[in-house]
């Protein structure tokens, strides 16, 4: 009996020491200097084999782990193997929309290292996603807004937004943003812009979409008309020494066959201060 009690007491005492030591050790913070958790990161081939047909679940587990892992980092720390990890997740499940979006977001947050390298990694990740999910206008749109707002690269933003606008199911908003950005960077001729907006107007089904697209089409036509009509105002001023009060005066001088009207059939005006064409957009929004 006493031997049993002695054994029990010894087990309890040793167990208590082990538990107490363990608790004290847990309280000592240890930095993951070498990125230990990442040292044994397997290759996609091995993970694919080990998943026995559940690569999607494997990608989920790795994705959830990566979010927890990288949320421990301060922004000015080196984000160890970040691109490798998200490459692995997207190799396992190439259609994992969130992995591209969140991976790019985490890459853009880090402040340590060369921003150009971070940008290149983001572009690689998005390009991989856009190749892997060729029907997703959503991913192309997310990539385009990131390029616009985070990477400050308008050319890239326009390229990805074009991709979004051309993909099946893209809503009118995306098509309008693409057209607007393309207009803003003068990325096409005014004739191409008009042809694009006419297409967007023709495709629009809801009244607000038709109106908004018509507004952009109107602006493009005004730009085209301005190129033709503003030089006539300059000619008029050279001949008469003053700016015409109306387009009728320009017609009477023989510079124009008839008073010009805008895309919506309303007459153009003339700004006396700058002596330039004035367009008054009148679209019924109700």
């Amino acid at each position, binding site marked *: 009996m006493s031997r049993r009690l002695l054994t029990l007491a010894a087990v309890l005492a040793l167990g208590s020491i082990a538990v107490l030591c363990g608790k004290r050790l847990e309280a000592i913070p240890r930095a993951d200097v070498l990125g230990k958790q990442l040292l044994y990161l397997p290759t996609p081939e091995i993970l694919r084999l080990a998943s026995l047909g*559940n690569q999607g*679940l494997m990608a989920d587990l790795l994705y959830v782990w990566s979010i927890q892992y990288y949320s421990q980092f301060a922004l000015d720390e080196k984000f160890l193997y970040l691109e490798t990890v998200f490459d692995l997740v997207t190799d396992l499940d190439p259609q994992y929309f*969130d992995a591209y979006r969140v991976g790019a977001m985490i890459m853009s947050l880090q402040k340590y290292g060369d921003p150009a390298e971070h940008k290149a990694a983001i572009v690689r990740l998005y390009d991989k996603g856009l190749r892997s999910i060729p029907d997703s206008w959503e991913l192309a749109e997310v990539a385009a807004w990131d390029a616009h707002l985070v990477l400050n690269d308008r050319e890239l933003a326009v390229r990805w937004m074009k991709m979004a606008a051309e993909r099946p199911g893209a809503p009118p908003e995306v098509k309008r943003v693409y057209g607007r950005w393309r207009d803003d960077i003068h990325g096409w001729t005014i004739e191409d812009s008009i042809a694009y907006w006419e297409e967007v107007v023709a495709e629009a089904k809801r009244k607000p979409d038709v109106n908004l697209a018509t507004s952009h089409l109107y602006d493009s036509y005004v730009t085209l008309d301005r190129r033709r009509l503003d030089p006539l105002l300059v000619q008029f001023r050279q001949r008469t020494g003053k700016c015409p009060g109306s387009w009728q005066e320009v017609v009477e001088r023989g510079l124009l066959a008839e008073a010009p009207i805008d895309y919506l059939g309303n007459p153009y005006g003339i700004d006396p201060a700058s002596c330039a064409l004035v367009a008054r957009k009148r679209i019924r929004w109700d």
Partner: protein
Amino acid sequence: MRAVAAIAHNTFREALRDRVLYLFLGFAVVLLASSKLFGLLTVGDEGKVIKDLGLAGIQFFTMLIAVMMSVLLISREVDSRTIYNILTKPVRRWQFLIGKYLGLLATVALNLALMTAVLLAVTVVYLGEFDAGLLFAAAMILLEMALLTAFATLFAVLTRPMLGTVFTLAVFVIGHVSEDIWVLTKHVNSGLVRPLVAALYAVLPNLERFNFKSEVVHDVGISSGEVALTVAYGLAYTAMVLVLACARFRARDLV
């Protein structure tokens, strides 16, 4: 046919008495708990995680039933000597074996149906959507399990229960990695390895052909031709394995 149905019915009832449906309860608890947990941990579409987890769970738990039950398929009848009683009646050996197979498959199917119902309920409650694609993915898992159960039946006839379990598990693993191994051998320059792997790849079952989980989770279209071919592949392979099992069982000395 009545003999086959009677044996299948009996095998099914026996499985239910063995509390096999507890696995379904285990699945339900795991899925409900992990769905909530993953919902908290993930960023973005938690629906994908829930569906991935649910379909993987269904496949894993049904595979467990097919593998574990195969141990008892024939050996229990021999040990308890009930097989002699049955075979003295106007029941042929192949009828006995097919009845056993169908009973086991019915158990697998019932569990799979209950687990799928839980998964659908979880998606409706957590995500507010009824994804009919999950039913299709579950049906394909059932087809995979029909083939695996056929292998379990063959091994139950061919070898001892423990070895049968190991062999059935091996078929499950090989069936899922054979395609990858075939792809990986493209990088091997040895003259002998590739033809050998090619021969094995052609003969061994490719269980990845029944794997439509990613397509369903990502809502990617699947052609009806591919589905029809998959069903034909599964049924033909299953029938072939069962014919082999029946042939071996006919020649087996049960004394």
